[in-house]
């Protein structure tokens, strides 16, 4: 399935959408850009730290609510579109439900396990408790309301056509986001035969029954890094930070890298992208699933 078809079919206006769940690596930018191209509105963005993807979606007017621990640009600092939306309501106001990294994880685990809420001792004494209506202080502990995404999008290293995905490197809140979500879209660097995936069932990220679309999208996480495949494109983050300081600069950037680009293959074309490919390969020692 193409990313355009996956977004068209499974990410309607108003979707509660989890992305960027590994924190800094493996961010599904290609999916986010396609969502912008298709002009989605009213999304709720769910994640820990999005490293500029959420900033872009907010700047493009796709989001009405953010349910996250941190929105900005990790190596460069502030998220300028996020600021404009929160401070001046541009391009339109957004509702912010602040979390910490731990509390958004627990909110997703609560949804995954069908728990009415998750009690915790984190966030005690923080004003986040007072501004996020999904958090409540009861009897000396914090109750976190479940957060159930309609859709979670993950960019992984490899998947088979049935959506059995192998992901490696730090996983952040990917597992709980995928388990909690009603539907999962997998974007993958390599589309492989089932035999490759089934040779290592412990590495399979999620049950295939959650996955509604598999998109073969090489470079789908650029400019974020992907273990074994891509280094982080620090310069791209710096360029985005500089240009997105003004609404006009952001519009120009968006035209150049999203609206004026047909798809991810076109986006990835060119020598500067290719230079980011990992050259030093470090293979894992296999394990033995022998059975008889």
């Amino acid at each position, binding site marked *: 399935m193409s990313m355009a078809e996956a977004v068209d079919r499974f990410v309607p206006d108003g979707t509660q959408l989890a992305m960027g769940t590994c924190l800094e*690596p493996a961010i599904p930018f290609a999916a986010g850009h396609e969502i912008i191209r298709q002009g989605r509105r009213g999304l709720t963005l769910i994640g820990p730290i999005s490293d500029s993807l959420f900033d872009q979606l907010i700047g493009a007017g796709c989001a009405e609510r953010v349910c996250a621990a941190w929105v900005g640009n990790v190596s460069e*600092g502030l998220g300028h579109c996020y600021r404009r939306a929160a401070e001046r309501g541009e391009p339109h106001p957004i509702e912010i439900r602040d979390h910490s990294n731990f509390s958004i994880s627990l909110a997703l685990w609560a949804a995954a396990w069908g728990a009415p809420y998750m009690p915790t001792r984190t*966030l005690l004494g923080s004003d986040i408790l007072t501004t996020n209506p999904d958090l409540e202080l009861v009897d000396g502990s914090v109750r976190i309301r479940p957060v159930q995404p309609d859709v979670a999008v993950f960019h992984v290293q490899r998947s088979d056509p049935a959506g059995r995905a192998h992901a490696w490197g730090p996983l952040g809140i990917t597992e709980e986001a995928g388990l909690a979500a009603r539907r999962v879209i997998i974007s993958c660097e390599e589309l492989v035969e089932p035999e490759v995936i089934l040779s290592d069932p412990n590495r399979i990220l999620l049950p295939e029954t959650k996955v509604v679309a598999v998109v073969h999208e090489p470079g789908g996480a650029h400019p974020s890094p992907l273990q074994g495949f891509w280094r982080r494109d620090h310069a791209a983050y710096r360029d985005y930070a500089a240009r997105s300081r003004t609404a006009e600069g952001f519009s120009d950037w968006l035209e150049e890298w999203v609206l004026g680009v047909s798809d991810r293959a076109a986006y990835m074309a060119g020598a500067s992208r290719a230079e980011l490919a990992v050259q030093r390969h470090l293979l894992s020692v296999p394990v033995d699933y022998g059975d008889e």
Partner: protein
Amino acid sequence: MSEDYTAQELMVTAAAREIRDGELVFVGMRLPILAYGVARSSHAPSARALFELGLMRDAPAPAFLATMGDPPNVAGALWATRMSNVMALLAQGIVDLGFIGGAEVDRFGNLNTSYIGGAIRPATKLPGSGGGADIAILSRRWVALMSHERRRLVDRVSYVTSPGHGDGPGWRARMGLSGGGPTAIVTTMAVLRFPDEGGEAYLASVHPGHTVDEVLAETGWDLAVAPDVGVTPEPSQQELAEIRRLDPQGFWTGRR
């Protein structure tokens, strides 16, 4: 400021001295990654680093990191896992030390990284907590790193993202916070410390090239000064070499 090192490099070495050997350290991003490397290479060779996205390491990554998720931080890790597993160690009270960067801090060490000027239509929307609130509440002790400006070191923050000592000694225990709270604020000008029982920060040492008066002028409350206030030790050549090995372009240390 000396020509031999930047303010950020001094902050890194000051932060590194907060790490004791054998400790489990919640490192986070930016200068603390360098501080962890300096500590490992000198006085804390058996410390362990945790990164909230889901990593534990012993030796620091042998390459520049713009984020904790850069691939060199993963290769050779002692554990690559989920965030909630790393947070479990924090919640169990077995993480000795955490670092948090702050946009705004107050006399009790409360940090604001969320909203300047109120949460409704704020004057400035900052990125938010990330893992900061979790570290501030749950780690055994923590250290803040700040740019020392009067607008950032304020009497009371208007929004507490990551709680320090609240409104004074005993506040954390009353509120049920399990960790010990902040023990130091390392700024671009000075090191502020807190009494063992928590409470209000005091000036412990001033960085070379700065004066007590200058620090007081850039601090937004009547900062107490330790009777034995001294000068923050300068980075050694060995420490600078380690910093520059990990950040050869000076991306984080102001040399870029």
